[in-house]
């Protein structure tokens, strides 16, 4: 169980346990996801990993992490619903299992604090010109490079089209066209804004004393002007009436996606029922999509359904032969119909419950899963812990699932296909 508290815009939660060989620290600033600021915010995270006052170069920082027994550090940008997260994650070996038993927790906190609060700046208080320029180029290429992973690219394109300009469709790194006007002043200004005003969440997992940790974090990360609360994301609603969007690229395999609105989000009472719905439909090898699209029809290597808990947006995906577009789509639609018409077996419910229970229990074995769940709850304004979720899933009935099925609304069909392989679609 996480212990801790949220006040003055700083939330600190610790999961004390003896079971891990490492100490996992995670800190993030949370801002509004907005097309105008997404790219400069992303650059803040990337410039901060380039150097601190004490370790002013990338090389010095890396050497320091090696000194800390190869602590792994990541500064990254994420998004959850309509929020953008600048996250800093450090996993550091627990000194109890190292020669000489060094105190690695203190060293880890020092490092995080230095990265987030005391970056290497010029005398003018800006990030160095060359650092910003290099990180801008890298970010531009990273955004352009999203097309390299076709499965991920197809999901991104589908979500972008579903959002139609709504905030949640803004890519977490921002857009290439927003990069041009950014200079070292913009980035420094965004950093100061985030550091002073954005809510900060800090999590620790491992052999850590909760009270000491919270005190240490509050001492290091003060910010009197910080926003106390987050504006919740709006649930996604369907507007495209199931129309088809096709992208043509030089690919060997087609990616078929269906985007749907469920109207249910993590804090909602119906969330466990939505989870069961998604599980029966497409989270597991026994689920309808896998069994019917892959096993029975041999049309795909993968076929899944998953839900974005912040928006209540469901995504169905399958990798298929181009010419099988029609038959795969028909089979997927039939599964949605079966869900709506209540053709759900006792077995499907039981297996889905077992599978989710297993996943939820296993979260306790993984520091990143523990932190991920707690972060989601804290950001989305409540919602069950994994233990609570386990209990409430067990109470979900077939009627509950059918009720969800009745409100699931197809928004958009997306197909990434090869050039010239555009399916006929009535």
């Amino acid at each position, binding site marked *: 169980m996480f212990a801790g508290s949220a006040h003055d815009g700083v939330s600190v939660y610790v999961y004390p346990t*003896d*079971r*891990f*060989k*490492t100490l996992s620290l995670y800190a993030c600033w949370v801002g509004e996801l907005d097309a105008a600021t997404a790219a400069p915010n992303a650059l803040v995270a990337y410039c901060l990993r380039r150097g601190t006052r004490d370790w002013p170069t990338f*090389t010095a920082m*890396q*050497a320091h*992490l*090696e*000194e800390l*027994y*190869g*602590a*792994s550090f990541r500064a990254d940008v994420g998004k959850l619903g309509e929020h953008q997260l600048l996250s800093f994650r450090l*996993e*550091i*070996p*627990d000194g109890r*299992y*190292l*020669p000489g038993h060094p105190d690695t927790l203190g060293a880890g906190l020092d490092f995080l604090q230095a990265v987030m609060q005391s970056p290497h700046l010029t005398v003018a208080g800006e990030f160095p010109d060359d650092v910003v320029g*290099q990180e801008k*180029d*890298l970010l531009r*290429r*990273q955004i*352009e*490079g*999203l*097309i*390299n*992973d076709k499965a991920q690219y197809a999901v991104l394109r589908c979500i972008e089209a579903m959002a139609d300009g709504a905030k949640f469709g803004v890519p977490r790194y921002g857009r290439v066209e927003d990069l041009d006007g950014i200079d070292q002043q913009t980035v420094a200004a965004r950093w100061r804004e985030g550091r002073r005003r954005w809510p900060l969440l800090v999590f620790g997992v491992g052999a850590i004393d909760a009270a000491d940790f919270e005190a240490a974090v509050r001492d290091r990360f003060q910010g009197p002007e910080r926003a106390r609360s987050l504006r919740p994301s709006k649930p996604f609603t369907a507007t495209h009436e199931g129309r088809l969007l096709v992208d043509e*690229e*030089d*690919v*060997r*395999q087609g990616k078929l996606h269906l985007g749907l609105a469920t109207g249910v989000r993590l804090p909602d009472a119906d969330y466990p029922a939505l989870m069961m719905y998604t599980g029966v439909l497409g989270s*597991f*090898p*026994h689920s309808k999509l896998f069994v019917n699209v892959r096993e029975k029809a*041999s*049309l*795909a290597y*993968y076929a899944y359904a998953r839900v974005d808990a912040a928006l209540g947006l469901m995504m169905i995906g399958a*990798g*298929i*032969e181009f010419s099988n577009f029609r038959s795969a789509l028909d089979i997927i639609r039939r599964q949605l119909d079966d869900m709506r018409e209540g053709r759900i077996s006792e077995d499907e419910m*039981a*297996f889905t*419950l*077992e*599978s989710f*229970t*297993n996943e939820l*229990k*296993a979260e306790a*074995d*993984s*520091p990143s899963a523990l932190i991920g769940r707690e972060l989601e709850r804290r950001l989305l304004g409540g919602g069950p812990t994994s233990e609570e979720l386990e209990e409430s899933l067990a109470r979900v009935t077939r009627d509950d699932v059918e009720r969800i099925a009745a409100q699931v609304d197809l928004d958009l069909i997306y197909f990434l296909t090869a050039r010239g392989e555009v399916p006929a679609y009535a």
Partner: protein
Amino acid sequence: MRETEPLIQETLVTEELPSGLRVSVIPRRGQRRTYATFATYYGSIDSHFRLPESGQTVDVPDGIAHFLEHKLFEKPDGDVMSDFSRLGASTNAYTEYLTTTYLFSTTEHREKCLEILLNFVQDPYFTPENVEKEKGIIEQEIRMYLDMPGDRLHSNLMRALYVRHPVRLDIAGSVESIRQITPEELYQCYRTFYHPSNMWVFVDGDVDPDRVIAAVFENQAGRDYKRQPPIPRILPEEPPTIHQERIAQRMPVALPMLAIGYKDPVENLSGPALARRELVTDLMWSLAIGRSSALFFELYEAGLINDRFGAQFEAAPSYAYSVLSGETRDPDALLERIERGLQKVHFDEKALERHKRRHRGQYLALFNNPGQLAYAHNSFYVRQVDLFHYLEDLDGITLAAIEERFHEHVRADRRALSLIEPEDAKR
């Protein structure tokens, strides 16, 4: 045999059963998940071999080990995946150059899951119909890989580095090769390589090792296995030279990708010698071009690499190679700078000590993740390296050994390049 590592406080219990099957268990108090693998020393490179009893030579289509991996999940009454799924457990399998591994992960019903794992891998069921049907699924899998730039980059590099050794072939085979596979061939490979003498079980979880070993023993006792001698594998003679200096492929990517490979001549290293070779080579690359090196920073500052650029060494008795790879805006410039940088590389004592620490920390972190730990244990096992003794030589590795390794390994005449280039059409 029971062995405890005092510093990291973990225990490994191992026993070899009469059938030749080896069982290893790491008991982990308080861990919710039980993670088990059942693996065979049979991978994508084993398409040519002799039957251990008769000595008769067998040649089968490429991709058959991976095909077998798929097929073992199918039973007369359905797919084994759903048997695990019913219990809330998840299962998976993967085929590599040397091995094929079946696994499950569960928080409940672990005895039952272990039984299903042992049984499904030991009860093949291939029919002309189900083999034909699987070809459609595997074809989709192969096509999916053909669209993955990172996969192509590696695959092309292996084709460039190796002249004859089957590591130059894709693990899943090709659409053409898998179409030739028959149930008879699957059975023949199955009977040869899925013999317990050629296999091992690894379990990591909050379990009693003796009970796990007893359960596997009982399962084996019900099957009439006689110990089988080692299977002679026929590998072509691989020259120390490379096949082709450079392979480039165009794909829809935003940025070019470059992989530089360095190949070792065949030395048949295994056990502690192989472990030491890995450590020395890893340390060598870390010092030369790792994230805290001057060369890495130079390349990063010049905008030629991103922070995912890295070097890796992969070694087995019959092959060993390093790969330096990443995305880059300018592959020619990157290559030139790396070459120049490597020529004037300076190996530093302090940096060596830092990287030794990093190795210790990363080894320790393995024990946080049951999947990674099982993977590490299994790849060590097949190379005859003991999990708890992997770092034994670390402290004794000197700068001189690293310099020597550098001159022996980083040679222009054993180097090949693989390139993925964006298509000309601008979007």
